[in-house]
């Protein structure tokens, strides 16, 4: 089964992770712009980060047979520093036009401050102007209220619900998200947010329509193989193959293809690995022999 992880922060992961993901069937990922665990203090730090998301990281993924897309935005965790907001939002506006950028995100609320309201509203306006879908982070604290407030803001801004992915849902926010008409993401995390058995239960209750799962793996305790592991759990629970395929492959493609920057037909063709390639003179190799696939035989993933 082909798998798409619609939310994973590969910048923080190793080449071993890429190889393991490809072996487990993940052939496409979306990397939302995020924070680095501590807030950046200069707008220039964001520019280099955005450049790596549309450049080096996209290349690095391709070296393991994985197609890499990204979403760009100023995340709510860094939205409360007035010194960087205006210049970073100018950068977001500029970089949203790049190839491989398939949504504005992850944006939303963290502390639900007036500053976060302002920055969310400005980025929603950018998404409408660029014709891009919106990928929404829902807060850890005061989650239900935060989810409702986000959906209300998007509705008032005139964003069609099919252009919105509300992420990090749980048992109590999923009905709110589905009622709104938005897509519903679920982050499968070791020991928090959502786990495999609970996710199986949600799919048994709600089916696969507008439902997605992701690992949100980053620099913290997380697992880049949570999409294949949850897929296995759904298979073991007897969930129909068609429903699983909808959740782990067709839905992410349908959502992000609304950007016009992701071609569903191209995604069906395996990406050949050619580690002889360079990116700005750099390579993922550290003196190793490059792995090279003959085109259309993407099974040979470096172990």
């Amino acid at each position, binding site marked *: 089964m082909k798998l798409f992880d619609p939310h994973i922060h590969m910048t923080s992961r190793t080449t071993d992770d890429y190889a393991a993901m490809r072996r487990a069937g993940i052939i496409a990922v979306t990397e939302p712009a995020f924070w680095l665990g501590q807030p950046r203090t200069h707008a220039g730090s964001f520019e280099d980060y955005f450049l790596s998301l549309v450049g080096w990281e996209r290349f690095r993924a391709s070296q393991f047979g994985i197609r890499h897309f990204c979403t760009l935005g100023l995340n709510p965790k860094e939205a409360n520093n007035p010194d960087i907001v205006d210049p970073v939002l100018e950068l977001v506006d500029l970089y949203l036009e790049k190839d491989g950028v398939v949504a504005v995100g992850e944006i939303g609320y963290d502390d639900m401050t007036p500053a976060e309201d302002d920055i969310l509203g400005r980025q929603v306006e950018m998404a409408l102007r660029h014709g891009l879908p919106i990928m929404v982070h829902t807060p850890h604290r005061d989650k239900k209220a935060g989810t409702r407030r986000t959906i209300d803001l998007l509705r008032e801004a005139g964003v069609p619900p099919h252009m919105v992915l509300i992420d990090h849902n*749980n048992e109590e926010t999923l009905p709110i998200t589905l009622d709104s008409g938005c897509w519903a993401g679920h982050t499968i995390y070791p020991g928090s947010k959502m786990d495999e058995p609970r996710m199986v239960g949600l799919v048994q209750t709600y089916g696969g329509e507008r439902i997605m799962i992701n690992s949100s793996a980053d620099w913290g305790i997380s697992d880049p193989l949570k999409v294949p592991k949850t897929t296995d759990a759904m298979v073991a629970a007897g969930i129909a193959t068609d429903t699983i395929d909808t959740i782990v492959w067709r839905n992410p493609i349908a959502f992000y293809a609304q950007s016009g920057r992701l071609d569903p037909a191209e995604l069906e063709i395996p990406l050949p690995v050619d580690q002889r390639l360079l990116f700005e003179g750099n390579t993922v190799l550290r003196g190793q022999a490059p792995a090279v696939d003959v085109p259309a035989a993407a099974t040979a993933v470096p172990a």
Partner: protein
Amino acid sequence: MSTRPAERRTQPILALLVAARDPDGAAWLEATVAAPALPGTPGFMRAFAAASRRLRGSPPPQGDELPALRALGIAVPERWSAQRLLRAALLVASVEATGEEAPARLTAAFRTSDSEERAVILQSLTLLPDPARFAPLAADACRSSVQPVFEAVAGDNRFPSAFFAEPIFNQMVLKAVFTGMPLARIVGLAERTTPALRRMAADFRSERRAAGRVVPADLDRLLDAPFPDGTTTP
């Protein structure tokens, strides 16, 4: 607590406690604060960092020193180290010499500080003149993912209950529950518990139960405690 600073009395008391531990350290402090570098300047940051190399092995506050430090505004001086006293003495002298630029300068100092330096700044906020003006800095510190930095502002600190607006205070309390910091360490929590905070805590308890996950005991204590006026959560 009084929101008025212990006018110009704080720094000499801290300096006395340093002198009681290490005469060399006290001499260095006196020389450094004779013409204090302003917070955030390279001169200040160098001295602030180097202070931790002094008073190694000196005892933490004890005996009669504890009530004296509590009177200055430190909630739990038992958790302070000798180095923290020295750094606080430097910081107070430097901020007192700064005037109206103090919030911007202290924010700059905070940004280039390591985790323990940040903790000292946050734990010392109530010692500074006109502490209310540092509320934006303290609120930003609540967003830290570095647990000792978060705990330096949220725990054993009189600042949040005295100066935080309700949304910021409530977010801080929920974050303490999330990160496992005992709510008993939040100074003034009972007085600041409002219907909005209880609603947030109740939503969180409901989400945890729906997820089949353990509800932190602190959440139950927060929700089941009576209001200051004697009423309880409906």
